[in-house]
């Protein structure tokens, strides 16, 4: 039996699945060795290690900008040193489901911007798609170089009280956070070498080399073309990640004014004159990508970029227009989309969703508003939500009116009890259960999808909170995916 040590006072919540401990308080057997190694720390020793980790992040400048003044205020993304563990068998199931999902969504985007077969056959989906803010009609008929649109995706998963992973949402535009996966791992290795050794964790540090290979695989004039990373600039909250990825991939990090388009080709302004660019890994939103094509007031954009893309002279990763496939209303149709294009049953569950554009769903939502989490289809980051069970009556009334007026803009789900993970409570210097989600990253290039064995575990650091977004008090954890056992000692 495990000497509970660091975990001595730890009690999983009765209503949620705990990632590390069973309901009876015993460690999950697959993690016993690793938990024993972690448990060997004293509370004060762990507190010291946690502080050291935070200091290291600050020194390395693993920060996001809070606001800009002459002396540059930045904060670290709160980090919890207690890892989130994922067993090899769970991971294998997730991996299969994620690959399937990306393939189906690629096929869906191809169809939506191409023939439109599914739209002709599914009138409600057609209405949802054509009304989606992420649908860019001017891209109809444009085939992306290399045939890939979702080069990088971050698919958010949660785990219900039965322990079943469910997709919460797809991020197919410019998902961020992967740099924290790599930095968190580097820290874990420095601070918790014993535990990570016992856990037999799969590596994540080859992500940049996989990403650059995926990017090069779709370059219009062959893999020797020039690829760049396009950032909105140092004051963007994800700037650290943009520079991190450029540095680790060995690519230039450019801002929009560094690029220009001539003869439908993209060029970089260099100290030696213009240089042709073939692949742009852009971390700028669609709306700000090209003032000619989208928002004319964008100073972040490159005029003509979409024209060059449509002419097949530059690959954009991710492709513009992907937002239609991660629309929160389209999400409800993804199981159907998987069956439609792949002829397979979905390997991953998702959260049952009421699409208010559907009359019966809308009536049901309005009748059960106090049990529902209502989301605006085109908001992200935890904004524009109604948490039915906790909301005040006036808030619910407000949403009731808005839903009735514009049903297309809303979807609703029953609140899912997120799983918990042992988490360091800085003030109390002890380990407590806190709710987590998981964002794995999937790369797609000419060779097909690949899932990074790891991912960003976001944790709601505040007791009782379900909101894991960094913009609203969330932090992150290193995610330890266990290797397959080399040989089984039991039957």
């Amino acid at each position, binding site marked *: 039996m495990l000497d509970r040590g660091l975990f001595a006072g730890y009690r999983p919540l009765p209503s949620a699945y705990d990632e590390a401990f069973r309901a009876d308080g015993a460690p999950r057997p697959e993690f016993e060795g690793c938990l024993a190694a972690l448990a060997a720390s004293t509370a004060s020793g762990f507190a010291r290690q946690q502080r050291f980790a935070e200091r290291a992040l600050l020194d390395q400048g693993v920060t996001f900008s809070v606001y800009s003044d002459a002396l540059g205020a930045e904060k670290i993304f709160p980090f919890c040193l207690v890892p989130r563990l994922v067993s090899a068998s769970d991971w294998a199931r997730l991996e299969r489901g994620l690959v399937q999902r990306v393939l189906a969504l690629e096929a869906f985007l191809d169809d939506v911007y191409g023939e439109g077969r599914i739209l002709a056959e599914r009138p409600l989906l057609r209405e949802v798609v054509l009304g989606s803010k992420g649908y860019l009609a001017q891209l109809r008929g444009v085939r992306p170089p290399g045939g890939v649109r979702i080069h990088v995706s971050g698919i958010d998963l949660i785990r219900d009280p039965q322990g079943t992973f469910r997709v919460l949402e797809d991020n197919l535009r410019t998902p961020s956070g992967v740099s924290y996966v790599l930095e968190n791992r580097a820290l874990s290795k420095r601070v918790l070498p014993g535990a990570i050794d016992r856990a037999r964790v799969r590596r994540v540090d080859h992500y940049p080399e996989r990403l650059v290979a995926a990017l090069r695989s779709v370059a219009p004039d062959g893999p020797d073309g020039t690829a760049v990373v396009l950032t909105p*600039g140092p004051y963007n909250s994800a700037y650290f990640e943009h520079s991190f990825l450029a540095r680790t991939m060995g690519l230039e*990090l450019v801002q929009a004014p560094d690029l220009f388009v001539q003869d439908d080709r993209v060029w970089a302004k260099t100290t030696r004159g213009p240089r042709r660019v073939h692949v742009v890994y852009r971390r700028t939103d669609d709306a700000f990508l090209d003032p000619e094509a989208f928002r004319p007031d964008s100073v972040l954009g490159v005029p003509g970029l979409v024209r060059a893309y449509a002419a097949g002279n530059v690959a954009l990763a991710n492709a513009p227009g992907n937002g239609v496939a991660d629309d929160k209303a389209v999400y409800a149709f993804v199981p159907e989309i998987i069956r439609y294009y792949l002829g397979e049953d979905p390997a991953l569950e998702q959260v049952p969703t009421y699409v208010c554009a559907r009359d019966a769903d809308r009536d049901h939502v309005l009748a059960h508003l106090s049990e529902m989490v209502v989301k605006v289809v085109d908001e992200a980051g935890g904004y524009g939500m109604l948490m039915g069970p906790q909301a005040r009556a006036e808030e619910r009334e407000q949403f009731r009116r808005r839903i009735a007026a514009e049903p297309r803009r809303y979807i609703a789900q029953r609140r899912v009890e997120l799983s918990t993970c042992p988490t360091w409570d800085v003030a109390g210097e002890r380990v407590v259960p806190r709710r987590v989600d998981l964002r794995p990253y999937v790369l797609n290039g000419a060779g097909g999808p690949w899932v990074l064995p790891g991912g960003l575990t976001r944790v709601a650091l505040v007791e009782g909170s379900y909101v894991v977004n960094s913009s609203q008090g969330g932090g992150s954890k290193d995610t330890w995916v266990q290797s397959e056992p080399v040989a089984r000692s039991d039957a």
Partner: protein
Amino acid sequence: MISRVADHCFWLGRYLERAESTARVLQVTQDLSLDAGLTPLQCWGPVVVVAGEEARFRSRFGDALGDGDRVQRYLAWDVEDPTSIRRSVSAARDNARSIRETVSLEAWEALNELHLWLAGTDAEARWRDDRHGFYGEVRRSCQLALGFVQGTMLHDDPYDFIVLGVMLERAAQTARILDVHHHALTDDALQVIETAVFLALLRACSGFEPFMRRSRGAITPGGVAAFLVLDGQFPRSIRFSIASARARLERIRPSDAIGRPGAESLERLRRLDSWIADQRAGAIAAGADLHRLLTRVVDDASVVCDAIGRELLGQLPGPAPVETGQ
């Protein structure tokens, strides 16, 4: 390389050099003020002038040019003084942060740690309790960052732009330091303590030991001036700095690369370099018009920087208001 990235590299070099230089001048002046027999104004006034901050300082603090503590606080900490150590380090770090994909991780961490140290309470305590040590720490950290730049980055265009910035800034700093003290020395009242001032002048340029080796211990005003202007092996002399800058620019933009941007910058820098190389140590030692020579160095270096900015650094109206100049 991307012109904007080159711009950040260039200014990273300039600000790092400037921060180190300001710390060095303050450290040396602090020493000088303790026992050289100079009035506080004779000590501290020139320091503000070297920084080019006399007007702004006077408008805020009136005639406090002789108030050593006020001058030091202004040049070390004042966020309204664009040449202060705090602002220079912060600006160097902002430039580095804008090109983190280009600067090596080691160089970035050294610079970021200096920035964080200055922003925290430890640096203030050090400043209070051990002024000399505070300046020493700033200088060490700047040199550490530059050392990591030199020892851990590819020696290709980004590196050349950083060194180009360092060398042009250094040439101008040495010229200004020498100019200001040269003025002070023409004042008869100071003749008695000239040796102390010349030693301080040499130390302010990290040139004391190198000079003593060169002159075998003989200190004359003309000899010191000639050394700081013309010595070919002293890494902070004007001649050395300008020649190094020229060598960097010729790597960035070879003279036979007809049609590539940078022709004017290179031509101007080459002219300045040849002109300095033509100066004679004997004439300078004999008291030739040093002030005119130094003024020309400062002005021409500034013209070269403008040309580089125009031709090579793109000077794009980007969305990021990162401080890249004054």
